[in-house]
């Protein structure tokens, strides 16, 4: 055991300067690393009011917990609040889980490789904490479990390490809101490892709300067993300096399914490089990726990668982009790779502008040009997410609407 920890530290140290496979590099030495502090557990009411208010736009409600099966709050590098409101659901800090259960260490760094790049290495070197969420076999969350990851310090690096386990036949719905105060610049590093057991279902809705000088490098991987489902809903509509993320789903069991929905808006000065990857390595494994991207002056790279190597696997990738105004760019990179006969993979990508014909149609009903354009953009971003519980869908639409209000 100790041997393993030591080896991991060595790997991390060796990778501390390793650049990421894609995306702009970030010079971490220009930011302050803070040691990870032991978890506290304060009442949500003790969390500063301005924080409680600002995280609302990321789907996190700290004033009223009646519609949540559990809550986790981390500010900078310290877990501040963890609570559960339903039997069979566990929510605690990752460090607490490692202390409580001997077996949790077997999940640590099993989905994400510690030496992936300097960002994963940093979280290990800094012994990052984060949330541990688990649904016991057959347990289904009545309400979503929420997590708030908040950066309050300027020029600091936030390190996060999350572990999510959905035991056999369970159902876990998670809303994670990632945001920062106006104190900039800063770096957010977040490792998230998902383990979805036989017949289990996890929906992971992540809403980002950063600031114009923040660099964001999440590293997410899900391992999905037989008949399991992983659904990721990713929303970023507010300015960020740079964001690069390429979450991967390994569909390892028969009929394992991964769905990715991304809603991305890049304003002037933002560079967002986000993709989804699915590796279908079991019979009947499926994936669907849908990305809606809008460049309002910013730069977007929208990636997608599906690889299939078993019979009856099926994957579809769809990326639609709108460029508004004169500046901005969208680079769609859809990739599909079939390794044998019997796979069924497809992709479609389109980058364009708002159809004038549609604008004029609405104008002929008396809407002004601005009203018509706003209605079409709202519609474009409204992804009908299949299989997302209605309440969660409503939450997501609410968050999108709030972010939108700042945009148009």
């Amino acid at each position: 055991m100790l041997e393993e920890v030591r080896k991991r530290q060595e790997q991390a140290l060796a990778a501390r300067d390793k650049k990421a496979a894609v995306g702009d590099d970030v010079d971490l030495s220009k930011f302050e690393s803070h040691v990870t502090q032991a978890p506290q557990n304060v009442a949500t009411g003790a969390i500063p009011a301005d924080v409680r208010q600002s995280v609302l736009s990321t789907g996190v409600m700290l004033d009223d917990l009646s519609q949540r099966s559990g809550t986790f709050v981390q500010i900078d590098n310290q877990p501040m609040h963890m609570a559960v409101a339903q039997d069979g659901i566990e929510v605690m800090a990752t460090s607490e889980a490692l202390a409580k259960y001997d077996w949790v260490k077997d999940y640590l760094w099993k989905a994400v490789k510690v030496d992936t790049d300097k960002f994963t290495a940093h979280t290990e070197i800094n012994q990052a904490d984060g949330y541990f969420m688990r649904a016991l076999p057959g347990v289904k969350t009545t309400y979503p479990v929420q997590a708030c990851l908040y950066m309050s310090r300027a020029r600091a690096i936030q390190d996060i390490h999350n572990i999510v386990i959905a035991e056999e036949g369970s159902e876990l719905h998670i809303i994670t809101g990632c945001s920062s105060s106006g104190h900039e610049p800063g770096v957010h590093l977040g490792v998230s490892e998902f383990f979805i057991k036989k017949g289990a279902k996890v929906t992971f809705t992540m809403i980002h709300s950063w600031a114009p000088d923040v660099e964001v490098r999440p590293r997410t991987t899900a391992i999905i067993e037989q008949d399991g489902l992983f659904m990721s809903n990713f929303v970023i509509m507010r300015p960020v300096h740079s964001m690069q993320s390429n979450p991967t789903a390994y569909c390892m069991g028969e009929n394992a399914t991964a769905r990715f929905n991304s809603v991305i808006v890049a304003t002037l000065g933002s560079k967002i490089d986000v993709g989804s990857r699915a590796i279908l390595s079991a019979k009947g494994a499926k994936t669907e990726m849908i990305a809606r991207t809008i460049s309002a002056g910013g730069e977007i790279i929208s990636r997608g990668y599906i690889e299939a190597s078993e019979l009856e696997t099926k994957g579809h990738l769809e990326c639609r982009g709108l460029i508004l105004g004169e500046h901005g760019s969208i680079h769609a990179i859809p990739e599909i790779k079939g390794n044998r006969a019997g796979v069924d993979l497809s992709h479609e990508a389109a980058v364009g502008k708002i159809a004038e014909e549609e604008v004029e149609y609405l104008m002929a009903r008396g809407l002004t040009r601005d009203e018509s354009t706003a209605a079409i953009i709202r519609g474009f971003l409204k992804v009908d997410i299949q299989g997302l519980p209605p309440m969660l869908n409503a939450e997501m639409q609410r968050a999108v609407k709030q972010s939108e209000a700042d945009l148009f």
Partner: protein
Amino acid sequence: MEKAVLLEISNLTVTVDGREILHSLNLAVNPGETAVIFGPNGGGKTTLLMTIMGFPRYRVTGGSITFKGQDITNMPVDERARLGIGISFQRPPVVRGVKMHDMVLACLRRDDKEAEELVTALAEKSHMTNFLGRNINAGFSGGETKRSEMLQLLAQGPDLALLDEPESGVDLENISLIGQLINEVLGKTHPIRERSRSGLIISHTGHILDYVNARTGYVLCGGQIICDGDPHDMLNTIKAKGYQECVVCLKK
């Protein structure tokens, strides 16, 4: 005393993508009047309606359009709509993400409490209740498209309705409903004296005349109005002899 003309078109010349389609066309519509425009394909019927509505692709290179005494020749589409002109498209575009319900609400241009009730009532009347939650025009059949267009016009309540082939692609079962909805849009449910709403209807087949009473008929051919008269008489001639007869008749 004669009521003031609602729409007056004088010497209107229109080019589309650099090609002149309408040549010095003249037409007037009185308040409460419904006119039907016949004409062969490519004669300029749709161009005329689109120009009255004000779509930028239809470029006016000569003449003028006056509506309610105001020169609207260079007025943007949305201002014309708010001034009281409405159109039903022959092939409207799909607008993904915009729900039928929100569109009808937008056409009403009010957001008080009764607005919601009105949307519900108008949708029921147009047999479109089940479509309120759908993306506008996405996967609509021919009849559904027309009902959706009429529903939006009902909500908008224009003084001048421009209807581009309202019966095309509509099955027999639906055509009488479309007829009823047109009559409602045109205010034909009111007594003639009080009637002030007007309509310009493009019809290829004339079927709609069985359901909507129109007083005036025009033949639009080669970019000009070449004939006017009783629409039923006209239709009979066209049915018997084709538009060729109009051209010959003109030469006499």
